[in-house]
């Protein structure tokens, strides 16, 4: 599964993109976040700001109940601040 990180999530995780193996039992975005949080101290630090983490699945805004599959592109980022 392709995971992307932007802005301070990218800085805390230490990279902008990674490919992970989707574990059995991870079927939605909320479960994926729990899995990623455990990968490294950087991941834990990024996802510790839970309230400020937004996500997109296949480039569409998503929430913890959004289903995820191995072929998806999942992105994590702070609330947007463009314009």
């Amino acid at each position, binding site marked *: 599964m392709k995971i992307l990180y932007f802005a301070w999530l990218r800085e805390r995780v230490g990279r902008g993109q990674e490919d992970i193996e989707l574990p059995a039992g991870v079927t939605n975005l909320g479960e994926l976040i729990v899995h990623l949080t455990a990968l490294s101290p950087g991941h834990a630090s990024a996802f510790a700001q839970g309230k400020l983490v937004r996500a997109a699945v296949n480039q569409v805004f998503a929430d913890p109940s959004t289903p995820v599959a191995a072929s998806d592109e999942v992105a994590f980022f702070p609330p*947007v601040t463009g*314009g």
Partner: protein
Amino acid sequence: MQTDIIDLTAEMARLTAGRIDIGGIGSFVGVVRDTASGRRIASMTLEHYPGMTENALAEIADGAMQRWELQGCTLVHRVGELQPGEMIVLVLTASPHRNAALEACAYLIDWLKTRAPFWKKERFEDGSEAWVDARESDDLAAARWGALG
């Protein structure tokens, strides 16, 4: 998205090219300010999510085109490093009716600020850097339009 400086006259010419049935053009230009929280800004860097950005801008533009009688609209957003005083974003709307043009401008910039995947990082004159926090006031501004589209 573009890293080049925004050329307002060229964008307006592109929007109105070959059309003489347009009554009014509304626009909003966002500019990099020189201070944030009382500190002077040396530069601003815009990060975005390639692919999703294009989709989000197209969705926002579609929403405006469905809601108002528009002959066209333009959304241009810069990415990369910008200096204070430079344009970050340009919204243009063309309509037979001036209120439609100006209201659609407000709609486009409100949704762009809350739904388009851009993130700003400020670099201060002392060399320190900080990601800009999202503002609740931007969410409230977008919420007044109801749903996007």
